[in-house]
């Protein structure tokens, strides 16, 4: 495997996660609990799709990849590298908020590291997305804190959502040893294992402040498979819906 192949794997995983998470979050548009939250959550969903687009652009311009729209919408399901965590349907708002909280803190850690990447195109991108992701985590923290203090049922639902999300969220850091070794050796980023440790530290402290118990990593089975192209039954229907308009006329200019 060449360095560029390894880079393409990393960027595709990151971009697919952002695209699918963005699409899922956008499904709340018009259905959010209150108008202000509806707007905020939709707006952050758009940000996620923007992050995916920027990464697909790097794949195209620096790594000889396809046109971003074509790559995003016309691949076969097995060629996507998104983790199962982002593919799952929204369920209720507790699950969606907890996923947003865990996912965006993982993004914070990842982009923090990529600001020092030896791969030049990632550095300005990581710098550019810093403020957006900061808002996403501020939003998530404020909600988690508020809902954990909003009575017994509310607290119980947040803890249950955390228990359900945690093994899935570990799937964000699914190891890819072959590419991982090259990327670490080349100074692209420190590797999934280190990102996961930093994420656990960060999330543990925030959960503790909200009174939530973060499950122990060794007490759960991480949900892997997405990075190898094995997906949940929910991805294919999502891809069909997401790409429906694009597939009507892939040559159209927008």
């Amino acid at each position, binding site marked *: 495997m060449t360095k560029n192949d390894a880079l393409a794997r990393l960027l595709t995983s990151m971009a697919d996660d952002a695209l699918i998470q963005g699409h899922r979050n956008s499904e709340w548009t018009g259905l959010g609990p209150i108008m202000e939250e509806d707007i*905020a959550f939709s707006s952050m969903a758009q940000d996620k799709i923007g992050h995916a687009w920027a990464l697909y652009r790097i794949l195209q311009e620096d790594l000889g990849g396809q046109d971003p729209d074509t790559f995003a919408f016309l691949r076969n399901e097995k060629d996507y590298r998104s983790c199962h965590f982002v593919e799952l349907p929204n369920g209720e708002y507790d699950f969606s908020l907890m996923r947003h909280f865990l996912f965006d803190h993982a993004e914070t850690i990842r982009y923090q590291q990529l600001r020092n990447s030896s791969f030049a195109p990632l550095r300005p991108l990581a710098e550019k997305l810093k403020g957006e992701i900061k808002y996403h985590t501020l939003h998530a923290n404020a909600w988690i804190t508020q809902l954990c203090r909003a009575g017994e049922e509310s607290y119980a639902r947040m803890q249950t959502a955390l228990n359900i999300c945690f093994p899935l969220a570990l799937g964000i850091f699914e190891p890819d040893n072959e590419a991982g070794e090259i990327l670490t050796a080349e100074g692209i980023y420190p590797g999934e294992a280190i990102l996961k440790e930093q994420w656990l530290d960060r999330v543990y402290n925030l959960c503790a402040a909200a009174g939530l118990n973060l499950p122990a990593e060794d007490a759960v089975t991480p949900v892997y498979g997405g990075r190898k192209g094995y997906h949940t039954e929910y991805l294919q229907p999502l891809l069909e819906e997401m790409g429906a308009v694009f597939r009507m006329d892939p040559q159209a200019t927008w």
Partner: protein
Amino acid sequence: MTQPSLDPRVNRLHLRDSGEPVEVQEGENWNSFEVFHQEKRGAHHEHVGCVHAPNAQLALVFAKEQFARRKKCVNLWVVRSADILAFNAEDEDMFANNAEKTYRDASGFKVMEKINQFKKSTNDKK
């Protein structure tokens, strides 16, 4: 039987045909917060609207997307609407004669003359 709305937020209100009053449960009735927008550092914060939120922290989080997602913004303030003290509408008569008190306008001072004089003198020195 009420026709259910397509909007879940309306359905959650449990509105009834008969016009019975809606009972507000503890925690359902959020505060409104006034939002002030600052366009650049050092500029005044200007009032731009309001948001509903359960606390000030979430009000700030909501305000960012409601009022600061397009135009330039460097900071926001939020303040609970209930914490603002205002005059009653019927006290508007206190301000009624303002327009007549032109002697309070700064236009009476002949400042421009002095400024022009000063400019001229500094230009002459150059």
